[in-house]
């Protein structure tokens, strides 16, 4: 596709369940980022991939959060044992090289009930 694609668009899950969020970056983009946007807040960095490796995981809020990227393309963000405070929009972005002109997907709105 032409842009960054994320799925699902919306996810409602029960507290304590695990969820997987998917990001399909723009073809050829080696850098991939996950950000979190809580209601009425700015965007908070979670993790950065360059190719399949994640040299910067400094934004992951707890060990319940993990992410992987395969084939230098698709990335999955996994949240284990979800808590209500995990409710947010999770945004994925990609760029040709790190940083400049990062293109964002539409996000996955996660609601933990």
């Amino acid at each position, binding site marked *: 596709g032409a842009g960054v694609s994320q799925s699902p668009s919306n996810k409602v899950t029960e507290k304590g369940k695990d969820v997987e969020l998917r990001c399909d970056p723009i073809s050829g983009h080696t850098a991939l980022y996950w950000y979190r946007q809580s209601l009425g807040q700015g965007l908070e960095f979670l993790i*950065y991939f360059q190719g399949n490796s994640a040299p910067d995981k400094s934004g992951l809020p707890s060990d319940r959060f993990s992410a992987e990227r395969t084939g230098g393309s698709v990335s999955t963000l996994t949240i284990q044992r979800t808590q209500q405070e995990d409710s947010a929009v999770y945004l994925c972005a990609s760029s040709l090289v790190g940083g400049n002109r990062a293109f*964002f997907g539409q996000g996955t709105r996660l609601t933990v009930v």
Partner: protein
Amino acid sequence: QQQVKQSPQSLIVQKGGISIINCAYENTAFDYFPWYQQFPGKGPALLIAIRPDVSEKKEGRFTISFNKSAKQFSLHIMDSQPGDSATYFCAASTPRDSSYKLIFGSGTRLLVRP
């Protein structure tokens, strides 16, 4: 050090007016300052960006003014239109951070009245 402070939180402007959003930072290693526009239900979209070697950059109705000594930068939207109503985020990144991750301001919700 890593924060970017954005103001105002919300802004109401009449059609045809000038919208001004301000950001301030502390980290002098920041060297890339983009502005993103976000409509409800959509991801942020890059609007315009500047590096600290210039004091102003203009693209159509959008202008970034950059004051390196004051560590401040601002977005000016000239001839504001109702279609500009959205949330605007400033951001910054530094090459010293190999991830080039963006540090975002808290956002400004702009409403342009017809």
